């Protein structure tokens, strides 16, 4: 049941301590900021040591002057636009696709994407100020946007989404020069804060939609392995950026539904694990579970 103070996660903080109740959140922020820091520091390090840790940006990069990494969604836009990339681009896209295919497509969203920090802050502030309501959107909208970006790439022969993609623009701008990209950060923040809760990452972003399709069969998933211990405090549901994914695995024991959160929209952010005082959730491997 809801704790006396009524604040989300306060029970978990009581039982696990603040760090314990924010473990996955802290790890995610560390991951997001480390990736950004590597891109930012590499040019400086290269001047001192002549070794490039990583160069480029999330669209395409080169690690230690050997390993190419390319965003498969960006490359797909290019191919649809009628431009066949050289093998470097293909190898890079294959590595990224294989990686997220295994660990969960939308892990990109919660562990890498710089916009996630902005939308998390907006959602946190929105809840803090008890802002309710706003425009309702369909969670499938992102797939329509994904489809239209590819159609537009085909029709215009350009990388249509990359002209306005906040994910790549913000990340690139932080590394190569800000320009007006701060306006984009502000726009995404205001959208999520004022217009609709979790509007960008949860409803509109075609990058997330693409990666969710990529991770449909992924092996690492959140597992409500102790769902019988759930005391219906609703904390996991409140913090979850994709609330629709939790209910069935958590409450479907009677109907014989697996306790694994199998929806490809789950971003493996681990906030539900953090805020649950009863330790209902943990990360699990699908292979292990089926054995």
């Amino acid at each position: 049941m809801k704790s006396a103070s009524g604040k989300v996660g306060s029970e978990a903080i009581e039982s696990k301590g603040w760090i314990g109740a924010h473990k996955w959140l802290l790890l995610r922020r560390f991951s997001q900021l480390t990736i950004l820091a590597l891109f930012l520091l590499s040019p400086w390090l290269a001047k001192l040591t002549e070794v490039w840790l990583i160069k480029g940006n999330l669209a395409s990069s080169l690690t230690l002057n050997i390993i190419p990494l390319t965003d498969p969604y960006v490359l797909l836009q290019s191919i649809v636009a009628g431009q066949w990339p050289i093998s470097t681009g293909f190898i890079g896209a294959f590595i990224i696709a294989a990686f997220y295919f295994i660990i969960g497509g939308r892990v990109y969203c919660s562990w890498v994407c710089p916009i996630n920090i902005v939308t998390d802050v907006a959602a946190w502030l929105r809840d803090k100020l008890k802002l309710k309501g706003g425009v309702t959107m369909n969670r499938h909208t992102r797939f329509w946007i994904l489809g239209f970006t590819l159609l537009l790439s085909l029709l215009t022969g350009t990388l249509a989404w990359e002209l306005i993609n906040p994910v790549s623009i913000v990340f690139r701008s932080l590394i190569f020069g800000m320009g007006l990209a701060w306006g984009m950060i502000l726009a995404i923040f205001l959208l999520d804060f004022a217009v609709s809760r979790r509007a960008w990452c949860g409803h509109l972003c075609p990058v997330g939609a693409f990666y969710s399709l990529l991770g449909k069969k992924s092996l690492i998933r959140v597992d409500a392995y102790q769902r019988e211990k759930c005391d219906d405090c609703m904390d996991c549901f409140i913090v979850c950026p994709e609330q629709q994914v939790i209910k069935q695995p958590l409450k479907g024991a009677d109907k014989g539904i697996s306790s694994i959160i199998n929806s490809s929209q789950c971003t493996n952010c681990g906030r539900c694990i953090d805020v649950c005082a009863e330790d209902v959730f943990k990360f699990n491997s699908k292979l292990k579970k089926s054995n």
Partner: protein
Amino acid sequence: MNKSRRKFLTDSVRTVSTVGLAALGLGLYARQTSASLPAQAIRPPGAIAEEDFLGACVRCGLCVRDCPYDTLHLAELGSAVANGTPYFIARQTPCEMCEDIPCVVACPTGALDHSLTNIDDARMGLAVVIDKEGCIAFQGLRCEVCYNVCPVRDKAITLDTRHNKRTGMHAYQVPVVHSDACTGCGKCEEACIVDGESAIKIVPMRLAQSGGSPHYRLGWEEKKQAGGSLVTPDVKHEYNLPDDLDYDYSGKGLIKKGEEKTGDAEQNDTPFSSNPLDTLNRKGGL
């Protein structure tokens, strides 16, 4: 039709329409961007044609990182160049034409053509002496800076000696650019000594060259191709030649007596009468 199905359908129609509306806007923006590259923004060596480039460049900045002279920039959001794509401004920092072309090697897609292995084959643009009123060489002063800094020296830019009519006794040494050698690196534009904008500028290939005028034939070129004159042989001269000279009617002109005449047979084919009065009295043009 049951209620939930109806709701699903209306919701879907609404979503698709809204997204479609936004997509129309984005499509318009994409179209506009692909046609609005400013002329002074020069793409890196090997860049494919602009409309293809915007579909091939993934905006990763690897070319920018591998440029040893910090020549290349990635366009920031809000600039007139499509955001995230590489370019350089020749007047500020020109391309140094590295022999190993690291920017092309770094490109993970086909945006920079990997078949470009000799930097002299690059065609980033074409240098054009755009302000002849500003260029001091056209005023009769000696400058030659653009000629001297050109990495394809004496091929891409040559100096043309012309008569200075103002003084009547001096020469102009004016720069002339040759498109068969100019790579568009921009060294000349950077070095040009005039204030402000350069008098010689790199102009993108799409703007720099005309389609020519194939319906005009250049007589001297045609003659070279045909191996001989294509026009009717000269009219026989009716005036006295100096004692030791003779006249060759099929192209040689004045020759020393005894030297071999070419095409004496053609002379007999001449459409002109042997009587000079016929030529003088003839009506109409030739």
